[in-house]
């Protein structure tokens, strides 16, 4: 997916302004027509419009809500957003009858990270429906239970907080540094990111499509970082944090199968677990908010903020067909004044050779 920079003084407001474009029936109709869905019903159009409008309301409400209900508002808002955009991109009303997940009852005093989410309802569950639209990972039902820790460890923007918060946790993303050189580019990963893994090659074997898209990694004592060289004509299998840093996704081994749901789906699963406990298990949630001494609360607050900021952006990327990043620099100016072209270098070399030949000639005469 190509990157696209859009000027915005407030990225959060701007991304919603762009999404709300699709809350207007005429725009929805135009978008559906463009995608070949020319016989869209009023019911479909109104459903999309209402879902996106309600999503915005929930997201706005979440901004000023405390941790007591913020997860629930965000979960509802995301459900609306994914439903609306899902129907817009598929050109049909996707029938949803339940959450598509169930939560294991939290033990008193257990960490949020230990909450267990089990995907259910493969046909009409919201999770399965959204997974079919927003992810290419295949059916999640039957994959068993997922811990909130697995979800939190899959979000690039909170990776450092996650590592600091949970001493025993394995991350599910690896930050990649892209090094551009004159004739080629390469990618590198800090060796320290493998500290929690017992086997480096196993990590790479758990990255979906890694061997199709990268040459064998270079990892020796003599090399400062793990070196990755993309294969020619490879596809970009990474995901990007808000700062634009690329991350490789380590898949989840579930019942012997490697599953890598998209980041939207993982975030959605996390929001469900948090929304569910705050709504239905206040006896667990309230003490956590009031008494947490581990710092996990800070991580959850950041997770919610990141979900609020990132999920609409990811949805927008899908609509625009590009990785949209909101920037503060002025747009419309391409400054190549510092770049010296090959022709200019050759001209300088020619002048110098001419001068030196003239000097030689004068010296010999």
């Amino acid at each position, binding site marked *: 997916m190509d990157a696209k920079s859009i000027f915005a003084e407030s990225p959060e407001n701007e991304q919603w302004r762009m999404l709300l474009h699709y809350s207007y029936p005429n725009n929805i109709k135009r978008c559906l027509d463009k995608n070949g869905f020319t016989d869209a019903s009023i019911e479909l159009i109104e459903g999309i419009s209402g879902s996106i409008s309600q999503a915005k309301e929930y997201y706005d409400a979440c901004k000023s809500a405390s941790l007591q209900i913020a997860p629930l508002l965000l979960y509802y808002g995301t459900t609306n957003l994914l439903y609306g955009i899902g129907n817009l991109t598929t050109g049909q009303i996707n029938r949803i009858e339940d959450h598509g997940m169930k939560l294991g009852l939290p033990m008193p005093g257990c960490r949020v990270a230990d909450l267990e989410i089990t995907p259910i309802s493969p046909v009409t569950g919201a999770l399965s429906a959204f997974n079919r639209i927003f992810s290419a990972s295949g059916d999640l039902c039957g994959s068993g239970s997922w811990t909130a820790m697995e979800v939190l460890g899959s979000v690039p923007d909170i990776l450092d907080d996650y590592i600091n918060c949970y001493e025993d946790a394995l991350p599910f993303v690896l930050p990649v540094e892209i*090094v551009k050189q004159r004739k*080629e580019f390469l990618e590198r990963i800090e060796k320290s990111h493998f500290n929690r893994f017992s086997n480096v090659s196993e990590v790479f074997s758990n990255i979906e499509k890694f061997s199709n898209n990268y*040459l*064998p990694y270079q990892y020796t004592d*003599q090399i400062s970082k793990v070196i990755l*060289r993309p*294969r*020619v*004509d490879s596809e970009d299998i990474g995901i990007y944090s808000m700062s634009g840093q690329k991350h490789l996704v380590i898949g989840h081994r579930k019942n012997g199968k490697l599953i890598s749901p998209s980041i939207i789906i993982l975030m959605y699963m996390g929001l469900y677990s948090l929304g569910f406990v705050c709504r239905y298990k206040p006896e667990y949630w309230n003490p956590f908010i009031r008494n947490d001494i581990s710092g996990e609360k800070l991580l959850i607050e950041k997770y919610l903020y990141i979900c609020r900021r990132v999920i609409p952006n990811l949805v927008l990327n899908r609509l625009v067909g590009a990785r949209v990043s909101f920037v503060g620099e002025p747009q419309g100016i391409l400054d190549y004044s510092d770049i010296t072209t090959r022709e200019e270098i050759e001209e300088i070399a020619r002048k110098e050779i001419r001068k030196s030949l003239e000097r030689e000639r004068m010296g010999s005469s």
Partner: protein
Amino acid sequence: MSIKSKCFELTNYIETTPFREQINYLIESLTFRPNESNGITEDRSHFGSLARNHGSQFMGYLIIDNNRKEIEQRGMPHVPHLASSELELLSKGHALLSQIVEKCTEKIVSKHPKLRTVLDPYSQFGYPSHLIPVQDMIDISVIDPLVEEFNSCLLVGKLLECPGSLIDQRTAEEYVQIVLSLTQRINRCGVHDAPEDFKDLHFKLPTSGQHAIITRALFYFICLRNILCNICQVIYQSFINDKLPVLDKDNVISITESNSHIIGEGLTIISQPGGNEFFCAQGDLLLVKISINSRKVNDFCIVHGVTTNFHRDFGWKQEFRLRVVDEDLNSFFGLGNI
């Protein structure tokens, strides 16, 4: 059919001979350092490295052995000794290649006798040639199809059309010097460029006249010598490698330059070392098989230069500067068409 295909047919036969196995074992022992799995007991990789870089197939090993004292006097590390049985094997290998060259050039030499040394890719090295029978190594008749194909190639036909009186205007030594000097000038320009005075030859060189005939004949000498050298290289590699080194999607990082010019076609490829291409040296033949941005490259190439690079922050990589060879194993094929 082509010289290339006949050459590969010959290599298929060679790979079945016991002689090939003996040579293969010997060259491996001169290439790799001893380790637990390869059964090599003495580190003679330095010898192999010097011989490979000499770029003259088996003769490289014989020359290094012959020049041991001079090499060590230049401050190079100790050059390990070879057993007499090992030298005999290498001599036999070289004799086979010499025999192929001789058979291929027989027809041309019968018309232009002085071209024997001009076309012989080993004539520049001054290594004494020994007449060693090769019949006990291979059935020599197996090279006949290759010889026949060589003789039917366009360049040989063009050369045979050249009047003997014109070719006789210079001595064989003069021709060898001219051919070597022109080849050196071509090689100095790298794989993506040609000497300035070659660039407009298509327009400047008249279609007829004594000067034009001689100039073209010189280009045929260069091409045919190059073809013979590449034939020897392909056969030599069939003794030492089970598979031809390949640059493909499993090791190529990028093609940084690719172009055609009056000499032929050049490619610069950056790769991540991982297979037998790591040991490639100047003059080796390899296969490039890759598709980039819907452009397909599927060519045999001769290594003009290779640089292996290690940086602790960027890892290992190799840069191959390659000349594409045509169906006749000619890497200067542009010159044959002037």
